[in-house]
């Protein structure tokens, strides 16, 4: 050999060939894991069933509390039955009204309106509500100065009371659809007709609304459409609205439909001929 060199590539390593072609897990074998599981299970069972003083104490305390609650419940039952006997006759109506009103009286209500959609329906509520309402009015920065006089004329006539239970804030904003907001987080009620539906739930004695009558809802929807319809179609829609008209738009009593229609028609500059003047004057008297 001329030159002895270090071996660079080694091919002499032993290559282990596999003896088994396919390796499958033994399905029958009880593996070690299960044994460990069993051991833990035993320990837990021992722990739960064993004598544990704290647990038993808790149990006895719970039993005592439950007994006390039962006694209290009996007492309240007797007291309430006594009360019922006293108050049954006189206060049914007021309890109904106060029940409803106490369900829906948020402390602060915000009503966002466009200056072209003044809330004439407020007058009737402010007149007849037995909960004092304090109204404040704000003009939003988006309102152009030409509308300020109109807004001022309306707000000056609004009644407001001291020591209120409910604060009502009117915000006049340009080109806004009417919105009733009860809190910052909930979705507002949009549209005058829907606001009236809500108000009739809050004041069922002032604004009668028969929920079960689908014709009433249909008429309210016609009012909603009338608000958004163009000048040309107004007469046709008004005729549809007054289809059942006798003394009032629907039936022989003042209802939410009359209020919705009156509020809408009052926004128009001139009451058109196709609207009954008699009916309009009746509504005007109620709402002034």
């Amino acid at each position: 050999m001329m030159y002895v060199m270090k071996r660079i590539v080694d091919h002499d390593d032993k290559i282990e060939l596999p003896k088994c072609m396919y390796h499958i897990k033994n399905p029958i074998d009880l593996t070690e894991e299960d044994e460990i599981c069993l051991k833990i299970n035993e320990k837990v069972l021992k722990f739960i069933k064993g004598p544990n003083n704290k647990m038993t104490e808790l149990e006895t305390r719970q039993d005592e509390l439950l007994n006390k609650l039962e006694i209290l419940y009996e007492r309240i039952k007797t007291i309430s039955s006594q009360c019922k006997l006293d108050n049954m006759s006189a206060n049914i109506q007021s309890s109904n009204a106060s029940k409803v009103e106490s369900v829906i009286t948020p402390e602060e209500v915000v009503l966002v309106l466009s200056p072209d959609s003044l809330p004439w329906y407020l007058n009737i509520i402010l007149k007849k509500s037995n909960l004092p309402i304090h109204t404040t009015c704000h003009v939003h920065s988006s309102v152009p100065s030409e509308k300020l006089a109109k807004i001022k004329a309306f707000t000056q006539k609004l009644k407001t009371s001291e020591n209120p239970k409910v604060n009502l804030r009117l915000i006049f904003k340009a080109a806004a659809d009417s919105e009733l907001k009860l809190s910052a987080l909930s979705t507002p009620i949009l549209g005058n007709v829907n606001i009236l539906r809500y108000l009739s739930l809050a004041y069922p004695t002032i604004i009668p609304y028969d929920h079960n009558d689908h014709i009433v809802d249909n008429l309210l929807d016609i009012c909603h459409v009338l608000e958004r319809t163009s000048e040309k179609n107004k007469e046709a829609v008004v005729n549809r609205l007054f289809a059942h008209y006798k003394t009032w738009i629907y039936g022989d009593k003042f209802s939410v439909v009359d209020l919705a229609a009156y509020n809408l028609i009052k926004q128009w500059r001139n009451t058109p001929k196709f609207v009954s003047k008699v009916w309009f004057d009746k509504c005007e008297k109620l709402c002034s």
Partner: protein
Amino acid sequence: MVKSEDPSIVVGDAAASKKAAKKAAKTAEKQQKKAEHKASSAQPSTESEPDFSEGLYGNMKMIQSSGEHRDRVYTDVENLSIKMDGQTVWVRARLQTSRAKGKQCFAVLRQTSSTVQLLVSVNEQRKISKQMVKFTGNITRESIVDVEASVVRTAAPVESCTIKDVELVAHQIWTVSSARSQLPLQIEDAARPEKSDEPEALKIRVNQDTRLDNRVLDLRTPANQAVFRIEAGVCRLFRDILTKKGFVEIHTPKIISAASEGGANVFTVSYFKSSAYLAQSPQLYKQMAIAADFDKVFTVGAVFRAEDSNTHRHLTEFVGLDLEMSFKQHYHEVLDTIGGTFTEMFRGLRDQFASEIATVGQQYRVEPFKFLDPPLKLEFPQAVQMLKEAGVSVGDEDDLSTPDEKLLGRLVRAKYDTDFYILDKYPLAVRPFYTMPDPGNPKYSNSYDMFMRGEEILSGAQRIHDPDLLAERARLHGVDTSKIAAYIESFRLGCPPHAGGGIGLERVVMLYLGLDNIRKTSMFPRDPKRVTP
């Protein structure tokens, strides 16, 4: 410019010096090539025709008020319009950019926020030579130039300038003051809108520190010009509205002997043989002015707060607009006056500075400011209730933290659609010692805060004007009564009930425009890390 450094030869480091030598050789080669190129390009101009526009362009002699050209009438760039088509005008403006190509040079002239296109093209009749065109192309950016030109209607509107329907065709062009050739930042980059709609637009922006280090250049951008004009408007409206309401402007001292708000955050100055402090607020002096029968006062001046806060809304020195007013029966008289002042100020800004607000809006896209008239007034328990509904609980006698205030701002905006509101009847425990407690509920006080876009801008209250109650409250707060003896003494001389508050000018402008950092609305801001320019 490539700078060639002489390689420092270290004994024994042969490899390093070899590299350095190679570098030096390369730079020498480059420079040689440049010189050759310059020489070759310079040759044609020296060989060209004689310059027939001599006397119509060049660097003007330094204006030392020697009395020349006093009859020259200059026109402002913003007044150039189609009505002046055909007229010859003199304009002094800055050269924003120039682009020379052969026989023509297009340049953009800028004066405050208005820009107009300038065209210099070779023309024998009008005596404009190639040399003049070349000279115009070589004027450095941001130099001030005097141009005599005719106003010409453009065939198509110039999109890149604010004056779109006319351009200037030059007759004479003179440099009044040239800027150096390498500017630390480009005005175009500094004025580029933060978020661009076009996907192809350049994304180069200038970072805030660079802007503040080169404030003189940065202030030339149209947005900054507009911001500081709006700031001037706020100050002027504040003065005018209050003066109309019968207020008197006073100026209070800034070098004082004792800290007013609370000991920690005052700057100390050496005052002859002892030391004094820089005023944290004009509080004490406003009240003394009321006790001195001035009835209704306001003051505009610097306020110094040594707070080590590096936030987007704190400065160590800012301009404070403070007011104090005596009232007859209820501090709401003052509260309504302050609220009314703000509403009038917002309305004044909206009506008189609409174009400036639009200019700012082009660079920093922001929603317009909404407010109600009369301003929305909520009480502290109501605010706590609103926050509770949203899942944040605030204790009965706790102050609102900054995140609470921001959330409350968003809730108020969702419910009432206003960016400005007043929060009345804060808990007594979190207010300074001179705040008058609420007569109906000792846990609350006759104090209020005002918020814009969810951030506090004003803190005010009815002040205690009875010296005994004041001393007692000071003791309860652990304030050393000997240090404020003079202050308490001024109430022993008969003082009417009064209330007031103060706002920071920069913060109000920042929040009105909806900007994100107070350094954008302070011309030369001061904060814990910056004392220059």
